[in-house]
């Protein structure tokens, strides 16, 4: 049953995306109305007199790509091939279509936020059980068996909608410090899940009805909460351009972390 519901959800997301990107790819019409191209990037103005946040960036289509290739120069250093790849991806009709569509991007982002409740909400409730913060009378294995399948569904929707969002703005996302943080945290969260399920959870029968689970389980629960909180926070921050490549000068450490090569240092 769970497999089927996952399948239905995936199909639904894909159909919605297809339907909405198709009419959205009308560049000539859109290009005349730059505000319509605005995406969820909040420009932090460097001019202190101006309003400092939440102005929408309008992407002049050719500029970011040109600027990025200028800044990265010949793709030396690590990530050069990836950078080229995402740069080409940003140029694809799929990416520009999604990027410039009137509703598709916003809808996918809404799905991403909605699935956050399903995934984050239920995963965190399971972690709360491990920490003895809720559902104390319910065996841990019961909570796991009943809730974790739903977090899997939520996670699948998150990954699909997240990948679609990434594909709409691949280059900027790839060079975004918060995006990179998020990916690393995701990896760590995955490792945490793996350690928990292959370790202390194997012996769950011995501590299933304990209100206070063993230390290893509590640590896994606390780590999981901390990591997912960081993932949500950094995910939200991707929309802000404080550390973007096209906002130089940045500190060297920032440029290193985002694999930016400012144009000035090339000469």
């Amino acid at each position, binding site marked *: 049953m769970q497999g089927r519901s996952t399948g239905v959800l995936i199909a639904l997301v894909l159909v919605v995306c297809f339907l909405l990107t198709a009419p959205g790819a009308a560049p000539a019409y859109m290009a005349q109305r730059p505000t319509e191209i605005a995406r969820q990037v909040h420009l932090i103005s460097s001019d202190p007199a101006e309003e*400092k*946040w939440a102005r929408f960036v309008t992407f002049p289509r050719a500029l970011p790509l040109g600027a990025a290739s200028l800044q990265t120069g010949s793709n030396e250093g690590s990530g050069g091939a990836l950078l080229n790849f995402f740069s080409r991806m940003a140029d694809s009709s799929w990416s520009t279509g999604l990027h410039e569509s009137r509703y598709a991007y*916003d809808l996918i982002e809404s799905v991403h936020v909605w699935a956050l409740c399903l995934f*984050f909400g239920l995963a965190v409730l399971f972690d709360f059980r491990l920490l003895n913060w*809720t559902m104390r009378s*319910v065996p841990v294995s*019961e909570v796991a068996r009943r809730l974790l399948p739903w977090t899997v569904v939520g996670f699948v929707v998150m990954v699909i909608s997240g990948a679609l969002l990434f594909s709409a703005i691949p280059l900027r996302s790839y060079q975004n410090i918060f995006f990179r943080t998020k990916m690393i945290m995701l990896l760590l969260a995955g490792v945490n899940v793996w350690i928990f399920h292959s370790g202390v959870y194997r012996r769950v029968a011995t501590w299933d009805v304990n209100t206070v689970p063993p230390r290893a389980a509590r640590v896994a629960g606390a780590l999981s909460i901390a990591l997912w909180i960081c993932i*949500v926070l950094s995910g939200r921050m991707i929309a802000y351009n404080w550390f973007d490549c096209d906002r130089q000068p940045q500190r060297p450490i920032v440029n290193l972390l985002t694999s930016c090569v400012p144009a000035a240092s090339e000469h």
Partner: protein
Amino acid sequence: MSLLAFFQWCEQSGIGNTIRKSAWLFPLIEAIHLLGLGLIGGAVLVVDLRLLGLGLRRYSVAQLARDVRPWLIGSLGLMIATGGLLFLSEAIKCYYHGAFWFKMASLFLAIVFTFTVQRKVIMADGVGVRPLWSKVVALVSVALWSGVGIGGRWIGFS
């Protein structure tokens, strides 16, 4: 005082100004608001899934609802507090934004529904409640809370 005047007063309040002038405050509050959303979503969904006969179905609805209640109330409080701060910083934009009014209407209905109709069904704990009615209540609850979340997301879209 007209409604618009009240919104203008909110926008010009000290808190609203402070948040608007800071580069970090709005994103930070917004991110906490989002964490609250995840938490409230979990607390709502776990009960609604149970009412739908999915999820933790071996446990009584009343027991489950009691267990997650502190988290529901707590995250709702967090949402309203952070949401209020966000609102103060852009009250005028909200006034002219359809999504804001959609969200407020959904929020009002969701709160009323959760603490009256749904609460009654939960407390009855399956006694004298037709299974179909439980499911309808769960679906309405999910729909209303989804309206709040998605409406909120669309306030950010111009």
